[in-house]
């Protein structure tokens, strides 16, 4: 993986040193995609490598500079050696899904229109033709029921991925998700496990109306027994999809309606990300901005303005919504002493509200100012374009908030 090679030996001219670099690598990707205990690389958000299993990974001894975009936001180094390939976010999700389906025959997909139609956002396009329509299953319209079906299948040994056509529809599946998915491993005394992945697009789109603009992460965050992650780039979408499928716990993967067509160059090699880790998007000194999903892009846009105004924001995409990566977040708070949370959830009871409480509880001594949380208002998302725009946090608001926070 190009960016990985970058750090070893601090080589800048990558192409010529490829061969020698690879021999110095302690972890070689011996693993084959098709099953078995494959050895593969887990790239941590700060660029460090770990090998092997999908559960907690050890901190590698190797110091590698940031794998993800640095201040200069350049991935130009990656293009000169092994370039990887460019694709859109929904294609990255599909690639991750396909690789996992190749690797493990127990992985299957179920949802509305996921089969020959390829999914309403084309995440499962082509999979039914490849794996058959039993493994990529079209279901009737009954979210509670196909989620229940996935739970039953998981308890019997399969690894299903449930696609909600829109996250908002999964409110109908709340009973199965809360009472069964999150609980049955516990109440059965560990006898039955539920390795399901529940995924789908959510968030505020472009004039989709209130029912199709739900932020379900608010409602689900209390359910014990599940994990929640939100992807925001093609790179982390593929990595998180693979990690979620390999996890033995039920995972809810939040995608965003407006991010499906983001393009990025991702590595050719296999990689799996850590479900519980946050991603350092832009290191900085003055203020910690915590965000996830679509708001990451609003924050980065605001960051450009802020940099021009002389501020140095540290931007972290928290990625893991349940549990929070308080290690990465804490380190950042200890460095900058100021926190701004930018989210799409409603003010009341959202991810921001929980995160504010968690940071206050754990890092109060390190804060120089109260935590500021920018979120949507407690209103159903209106249809009219201008009204809708006013309910979503905009870059200008983020700039103002940082200016006020930093003085």
């Amino acid at each position: 993986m190009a960016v990985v090679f970058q750090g070893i030996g601090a080589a800048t001219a990558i192409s010529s040193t490829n061969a020698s670099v690879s021999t110095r690598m302690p972890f070689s990707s011996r693993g084959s995609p098709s099953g078995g205990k494959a050895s593969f690389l887990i790239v941590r958000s700060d660029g460090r490598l770990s090998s092997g299993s999908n559960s907690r990974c050890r901190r590698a001894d190797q110091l590698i500079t940031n794998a993800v975009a640095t201040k200069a936001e350049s991935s130009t180094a990656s293009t000169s050696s092994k370039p990887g390939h460019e694709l859109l976010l929904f294609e990255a999700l599909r690639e991750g899904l396909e690789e996992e389906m190749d690797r493990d025959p127990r992985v299957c997909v179920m949802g509305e229109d996921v089969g020959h139609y390829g999914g309403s956002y084309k995440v499962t396009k082509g999979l039914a033709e490849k794996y058959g329509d039993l493994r990529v299953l079209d279901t009737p319209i009954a979210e509670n029921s196909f989620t229940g079906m996935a739970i039953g299948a998981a308890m019997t040994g399969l690894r299903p991925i449930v696609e909600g056509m829109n996250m908002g529809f999964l409110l109908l599946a709340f009973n199965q998700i809360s009472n069964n998915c999150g609980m049955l491993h516990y109440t059965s005394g560990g006898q039955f496990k539920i390795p399901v992945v529940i995924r789908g697009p959510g968030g505020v789109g472009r004039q989709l109306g209130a029912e199709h603009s739900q932020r379900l992460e608010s409602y689900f965050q209390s359910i014990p027994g599940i994990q929640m992650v939100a992807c925001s780039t093609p790179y982390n979408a593929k990595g998180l999809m693979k990690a979620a499928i390999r996890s033995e716990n039920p995972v809810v993967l939040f995608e965003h309606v407006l991010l499906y067509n983001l393009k990025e160059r991702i590595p050719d090699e296999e990689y799996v990300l850590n479900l519980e880790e946050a991603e350092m998007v832009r290191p900085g000194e003055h203020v910690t901005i915590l965000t996830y999903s679509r708001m990451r892009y609003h924050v980065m846009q605001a960051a450009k303005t802020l940099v021009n105004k002389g501020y140095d924001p540290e931007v972290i995409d928290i990625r893991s919504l349940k549990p929070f990566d308080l290690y990465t977040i804490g380190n950042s708070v200890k460095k900058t002493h100021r926190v701004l949370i930018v989210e799409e959830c409603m003010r009341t009871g959202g991810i921001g509200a929980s995160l504010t409480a968690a940071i206050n509880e754990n890092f109060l001594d390190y804060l120089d100012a109260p935590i500021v949380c920018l979120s949507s208002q407690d209103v159903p998302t209106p249809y009219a374009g201008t009204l809708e725009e006013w309910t979503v946090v905009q870059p200008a608001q983020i700039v103002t908030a940082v200016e006020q926070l930093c003085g």
Partner: protein
Amino acid sequence: MGLVRILCRRLCRTSFLRHATSSINSTTEIGVVGHRSLASACRDSPSPIFFFRRFESTEAQFQHVYSDSEDDTQETLDYPGGRIPFTSQMRFISEFPEPRIPCYRVLNEDGYPIVRKIAEQMTKEEALKIYRSMVTLQIMDTVFYEAQRQGRISFYVTSAGEEAINISSAAGLSPDDLVLPQYREAGVLLWRGFTLQEFASQCFGNKYDYGKGRQMPIHYGSNKHNYFTISSPIATQLPQAVGAAYSLKTDGKDACVVTYFGDGATSEGDFHAGLNFAAVMEAPVIFFCRNNGWAISTPLIDQFRSDGVVVKGQAYGVRSIRVDGNDALAIYSAVRAAREMVITEQRPILIEVLTYRVGHHSTSDDSTRYRPADEIEHWGTARNPIARFRKWIDRNGWWTEDDESKHRANVRKELLNAIQVAERAEKPPLSELFTDVYESVPPNLREQEELLRENVKKNPQDYPSNVAL
């Protein structure tokens, strides 16, 4: 006129052969036409009109039909979903079949076999095992109920009146079949080998409970017995059963899924979707409805207005049967036949058993408040399923009064002992509060566990001293 009409109908039939498979011989019986369900309709229809022979010379007739089609009164038309015959009679389908769907029974009220062939298929060993298990279940229910009343366990649910349903249905299955129960099916687990001690451990929530003390009493679960852990919300197991069946289907296993539920559960959305899904997925599930007349205090008239649950099967395209729930032999034979069909044909089947819930809904209920005591008495004695089966095995010379009293005494003794042992056994330790929420205990839960341990250490007087940490 008659001949012309018949000829016209014949021509209309041939036009829809375009949907059938192309290789047709001159005198092929047409059974399969287009959509599968229509095929079954053609095969099973009592009307002979739909069954006809095709002749070689039909080729020319195709054209003939088409050119005439505008003028002919078409009897059928192509709609999405298949070909539908027309009628000029405006007839509403009745909301209630008259007569009602009959109930399959093998032994009459006095234990005489009406269908000797079926009765003869059961061996003495099987019959005695079934009988003994029914009695064990009855005694277990009585003793645990008493234990709850004495305050030794917090809650209990009996299967009084439904012993035949529990044991016989389990006897008709194989141990590989997956069971997704509601909560009144402890007998199924008993049949599969769950011991009285294991039952007691779960009810007392001690450290030997497979659920590690996390669920209410009677919420049994045992993966080695293929009995999925009971979850209180009604009917949630129905779509899960379809998922489990889907899993079996992908593995091609010689096993099916059986899911139990009551009459009340058929009102839940999950019942509707579960049956629908099973039919569409062609999932090998037996949907077993215990229609016992009461959903806590809600009688059937307030639950649904259909002719019971069996008629709902056809609404979803699911084959169904109604069985006498107090007749152990009928249930046994019906379940065995259903299992055969479910596995070989890969289709769901709905079995509605009619019975009566003799006990209260649970220990939190007093059913004499909403139904007459003599009705309960009648079903508990005159219509008792155990007594009925006993008459049959007595008459066969397989069981004596002596056997009865010995068996009852043994079971009672074993059970009382199991309860004492379970009561004295330790409760699960504090560490089990935080395990199994996830695959491995995450840092935030570890933190919460530490806080709790600190608290317990600081204030030992506020916490039970006989529970390990």
